[in-house]
């Protein structure tokens, strides 16, 4: 029974090793930082929410995940009742937009409880003991393993996942990883632009501290960034982690360009602020944002930290021109209306 799960865990370990290697090459320091404290920072959360750009229609949009549609229901509502249901919907949207946590990948070193070498070769298979009493969460549940060499240890995260899924299955979660997360199929899905589907299913299938989850989400985020399909993740719960991923890996330039080109200066500022919080050692981190001086703040980042300086500068210049023209037109209109 366990040969397959071991196989799976081996695969996951391989991927995690690769992932760690990637991080090491990315980071000049060589030591992996834990993103969780930064991600759960209140300021960061607020900035991420701002970048998500919530549109209720998109939040509640129809996801065609293979379920037959139902006949719509209708109600006669007064204005007050309508306000109330809208408020409820907003609360529900908050819930729906709860971001999947960004945490450090777990390390596979389970705690050993006792060395009972006299039990060596007691059996041909390992024994897993699971506490299935009611009311314990999956994380707190006691699961221990008696190894073949007689060592009694706590279960590894993969073993925990397997046992939890066996005794307390979650709807939609599979014991074995669906094929769609394998490299070739995943690539095909990402080429088709089904980012939200991949991320939704990854959330359902994996735990956030699983290396394979982090690898799949990273691949998806990179695909979105390369294709510049930012709108496909907007107003979903995945946009926050996506923006955080970009800031964490210092590759916000494409996203920044998109924001400047679509004249979203407040979001541009929020993104740069996020970058500064996530990377306090950045050169432009000392720059302070003052309302009304967005261009200056952006300019500081573009000059010292961006990797695509020329393109960003051009876009920023065009945006400055646009704002200048807009101001002139407004002034002209006011003058025409007889205002000073």
């Amino acid at each position, binding site marked *: 029974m366990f040969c397959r799960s071991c196989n799976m865990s081996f695969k996951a370990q391989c991927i995690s090793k690769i992932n760690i290697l990637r991080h090491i090459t990315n980071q000049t320091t060589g030591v992996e930082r834990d993103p969780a404290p930064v991600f759960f920072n209140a300021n960061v959360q607020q900035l991420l929410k701002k970048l998500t750009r919530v549109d209720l*229609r998109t939040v509640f*949009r*129809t996801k065609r995940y293979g379920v*037959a*549609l*139902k006949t719509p229901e*209708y109600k*006669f509502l*007064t204005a007050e009742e309508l306000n109330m249901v809208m408020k409820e919907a907003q609360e529900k949207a908050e819930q729906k937009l709860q971001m999947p946590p960004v945490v450090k990948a777990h390390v596979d070193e389970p705690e050993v409880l006792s060395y009972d070498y006299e039990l060596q070769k007691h059996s041909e298979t390992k024994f897993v003991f699971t506490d299935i009493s009611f009311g314990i969460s999956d994380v707190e549940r006691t699961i221990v393993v008696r190894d073949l060499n007689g060592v009694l240890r706590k279960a590894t995260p993969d073993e925990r996942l397997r046992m939890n899924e066996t005794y307390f299955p979650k709807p939609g979660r599979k014991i074995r990883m669906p094929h769609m997360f394998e490299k070739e199929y995943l690539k095909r899905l990402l080429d088709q632009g089904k980012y939200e589907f991949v991320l939704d299913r990854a959330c359902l299938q994996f735990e956030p501290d699983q290396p394979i989850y982090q690898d799949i989400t990273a691949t998806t985020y990179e695909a979105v960034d390369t294709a510049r399909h930012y709108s496909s993740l907007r107003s979903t719960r995945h946009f926050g982690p996506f923006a955080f991923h970009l800031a964490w890996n210092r590759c916000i330039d494409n996203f920044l360009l998109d924001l400047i080109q679509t004249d979203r200066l407040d979001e541009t500022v929020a993104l740069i602020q996020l970058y500064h919080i996530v990377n306090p050692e950045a050169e432009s981190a000392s720059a302070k944002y003052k309302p009304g001086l967005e261009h200056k703040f952006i300019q500081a980042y573009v000059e010292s930290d961006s990797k695509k300086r020329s393109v960003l500068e051009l876009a920023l210049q065009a945006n400055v021109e646009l704002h200048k023209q807009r101001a002139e037109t407004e002034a002209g209109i006011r003058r025409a209306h007889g205002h000073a």
Partner: protein
Amino acid sequence: MSASVLRLNKVLGKCVYGVRLTKDVLNTSQRVQNMFTTCANVPILTVAICTPISVIVRNTSFFNKLPAEALWKGVTSVSNAGRKRGRGKGIGKKMAKDLNRGQVIGVGKSNIIWPGLTVPVLRGRELVQQQKLPEDPEREKMLIKLRDDMGNFRPLRLSPIERGWSGTKMPGRSIGPPDPVGEETFEGFDTKVLELKSVFNMKGSAGRKRQISAFVVTGNKNGSAGIALGKALEAKAALRKAKNRAGQKMMYLEIFNNHTVYHDFFCQFGKTKIFVTKKPEGFGLVCHRAIKTTCEVIGIKDLYAKVEGPTNLQHIIKAFFIGLLHQKTHQMLADEKKLHVVEFREENDYFPTVVASPATCRTLEEINADEVMDYTQYALGNRVFLKKKRLPPFFTKLPSWENYLKKTQYTRNRDKVKVTLLAEYDEVQSFYTEKYPECVHGYREQTEAD
């Protein structure tokens, strides 16, 4: 004498195979000779061979008295009594073959060139000579095949798209848009036949008078549709009349989101009652075939309708049209109620979408306690569909049902397991297969002979 001739015959028959018997034959012939005095001058042997082969020829028979047409009719036609019983119709019907088909003068079994008949006389400056070419075996086969194909009855094949409700019958079939009136053309319209039947009328002078009645619906699949009845002596004329009349009787019917009705409704014509239910996209048309065809022409794609009472087709269609015309759009309902009409969809997690708002909205205090606030009930004119509770079938109370359930219990998840296995391994196999490769369906142990 006849006996001896017979004997001669026998002997002749054998003598073909053996020369030894020739003498015997001659002896017999000599004996016979005395009897055939008239043939005295003719050599004996010739007489002996000629006589038995002579055939009595009657030069009259129905083959040469009747024309081919009459002959074929005799073979292929069905008696009046037989026709009344339905014989000689459909598959198995015998039909006359034209044996001249595929035959050309000058072309025959032996492949001969006839200059001036089958080929030109001159080829360049050279005179073409009559010439025998090697025989063409294909020609005979082709002729036989042609004749074989001709004889049997083949029903008219219609493509599944243009086929009607049943066989080659007209109801359900499309007959194109109504004819243009002046410069007005009916572009994008299509007409479908709903009913085509013969009707009778008693005339004072002529007695029973037969006519064909056609009931059709025409529409542009976008809310415009019309129905009409046309009568004529011929089916074709009746259809044309009905089609053109339907073109003149257009009405506009509201369609919700281009796929279904605005709300559930009840409609009635005579005693024919229809209960129509709104359905989501992808549901399809689940209703009487005439309603289905009408919906297709109008442009409705999803709907459930239950007909109660007499199923007179014209009544059904009239009732359905009355129901569609009496629909209230969301805006009309909002204006009537002076309340917002808000849509909640399960697939959108019940997000409230305002589909219609009144000019001035009432407050909670202004709503009467006994007012109907249920959308469906209000749209139905304060009615409620009586949905009878479905009782479990009788056999579920039998002890054998319990047995059946027990016996088949182990198969209860088979379909799901099959799907999962197919998704995982591309084939249905045991979970042991990874460890033991022989654990697959249809495994055969390899023998030494293999």
